[in-house]
């Protein structure tokens, strides 16, 4: 149905162009603010919730239209191209989760110089002129993962790490984990596996790693690859703990089943909601209260998983 609507809109647009712009609204109609919200990738389930949050904020504000567009996969160049296209479209504001902050710095600065306010969310571009960042400090998030793993292991044992090399935020999370583990000499990192953003590869590495290290103390994943499906952790024995980033389903089910001990989740709905509200405020002349706005994290364990799932469902339904 939705696709039919999109096709109808495309046909209408073509017709409007063909009719010499007869479809343009009357000059006295109040113009909506057009905010571009750019996620890192469209194929990561966590960003669906950010979209829900952004659209909810737009609805609440009334005079805002959210344009949700991002690369299909985590492609830095495509994300830059999308950002540049929004500058040329002269949107009223841009909220972006940067795949690579340094790579996007010049483009963000160009948007700011062109008078388009930019805020970042989830993953920052700290060297740019962006007005504010909403999210968690990734290194702090990594530290939390590390600290929770250390507690589960009582300060000793072996751990295997899981990441995707090349993404700035994942590298910072990894740095945070390693910083904590370095303070515990009885904990040995046996390997850092690169899953290359591939959930099948993650499942293969977990199975291979479990086979290679049957006495492994814990898996620490700075992304949600092991918890995006129920099957990836099947080979992991009960003696091996699992600590991972991201809390979307089926991850909480894995906590309930005892396959995962700790999940660290971000404020997925807030990722969309807060930047849109910030941009609306900036356009009304009200600057954000700080440059870095810490969203905090959710830590999900067996004892609070039910409450977390109930709260998440409420947010999902827009309550």
């Amino acid at each position: 149905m939705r696709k039919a609507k999109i096709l109808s809109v495309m046909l209408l647009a073509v017709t409007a162009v063909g009719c010499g712009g007869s479809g343009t609204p009357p000059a006295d109609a109040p113009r909506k603010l057009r905010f571009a919200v750019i996620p890192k990738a469209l194929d990561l389930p966590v960003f669906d919730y950010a979209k829900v949050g952004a659209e909810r904020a737009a609805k609440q504000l009334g005079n805002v239209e959210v344009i949700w567009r991002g690369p299909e996969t985590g492609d830095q160049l495509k994300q830059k191209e999308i950002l540049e296209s929004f500058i040329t479209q002269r949107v009223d504001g841009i909220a972006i989760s940067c795949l690579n902050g340094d790579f996007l710095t010049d483009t963000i600065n160009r948007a700011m110089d062109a008078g388009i306010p930019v805020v970042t969310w989830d993953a920052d571009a700290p060297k740019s002129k962006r007005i504010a960042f909403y999210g968690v400090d990734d290194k702090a998030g990594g530290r939390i993962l590390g600290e929770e793993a250390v507690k589960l292991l009582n300060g000793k044992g072996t751990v295997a790490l899981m990441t995707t090399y090349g993404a700035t935020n994942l590298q910072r999370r990894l740095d945070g984990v390693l910083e904590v583990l370095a303070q515990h000499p009885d904990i040995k990192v046996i390997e850092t596996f690169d899953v290359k953003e591939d959930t099948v590869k993650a499942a293969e590495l977990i199975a291979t790693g479990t086979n290679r290290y049957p006495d492994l103390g814990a898996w620490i994943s700075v992304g949600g690859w092991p918890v995006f499906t129920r099957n990836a952790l099947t080979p992991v024995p009960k003696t091996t703990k699992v600590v991972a980033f991201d809390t979307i389903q089926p991850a909480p089910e894995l906590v309930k089943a005892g396959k995962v001990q700790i999940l660290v989740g971000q404020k997925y709905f807030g990722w969309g909601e807060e930047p849109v509200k910030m941009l609306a405020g900036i356009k009304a002349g009200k600057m954000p209260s700080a440059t870095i706005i810490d969203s905090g994290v959710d830590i999900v364990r067996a004892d609070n998983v039910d409450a977390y799932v109930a709260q998440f469902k409420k947010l999902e339904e827009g309550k």
Partner: protein
Amino acid sequence: MKRAGRIWHVREASTLAILMLEIVFFGWYLWPDGGGSYHPFLNSSNALLVLKYSSIYGIAAIGAAIVIISGGIDLSPGAVIALASVATGGLLVDAGWGLAPSIAAGLLVGVVSGLLVSLLVIVVQLPPFIATLGAMGIVRGAGFILTEGRYFDVSRILPPGWRPLGIPLDWWPPVVMIVLAAVFQLMMHRLQWGRAVYAIGGNETAALFSGISIGRIKTSVYLISATLAAVSGVVLALVQGQGKADLAMGYELDIIASAVVGGASLSGGRGSVIGAVLGALIFGVLRNALAQIPGATFYDRMIVGVVVIVIVVMDQILVKRGA
């Protein structure tokens, strides 16, 4: 012809020898320190693991090898794998369809993709590289349009410990791969169709003058390739429990590499189905073993590249000597 037949057998035997050599090498390299009784690499559960994950590539590599033997190339298997997983997963999870029709829909993705490529190659007369490059984009794009970035959690639907026909789920990918490899190996060598595929790849003009229906054979070749990729996608959706538009991203190159390492010549007319499966196993063993060597993460891409070049060079030397 007899001499040529000998070369094929030598080529398959040499691929098998390389695989065995690889297993022996990593068996030695990963020998447990202090002579412990548990060998992390040479054990049955690890062997199943290699077979299970190699099958995703291996099933599709059978089709890729047939296309390459016919003198073509297929860049779309990765995209077809993803779309088949999306179709099966979406219908199972969102639409509430039964298992059999969902699987059939997944396989239908392959049939439609194969027909599209055939149409582009035979009717529109596009070079296979361009036709399958376009098909890759269309099929991958269709996956993203259907899912809008979401993924289908198939594992939610399937019962835990599910054993279809009494066979554990993990065994299914290798079973499917081995059965399909045996069937297509026989088809390639015992049926007139198989000989026609070799003939077209060897010399298309000569094949045409000898009365072979080029269009029909090529259609069947691309149809088989895409359908086998869809089989891989359906297996992936059921065994890994997910239907996702970005699955198997870039796998087409690994699939082609498996076929080439297994003896398929990119100039056509040469190669084997069994060789392609052995090629997929060579890469499967490599991925498995490198994951067990601390610090090897950064080297795996490079090692895979080197392995492709070394094996193909060895192949050329072998063929020159055989000729």
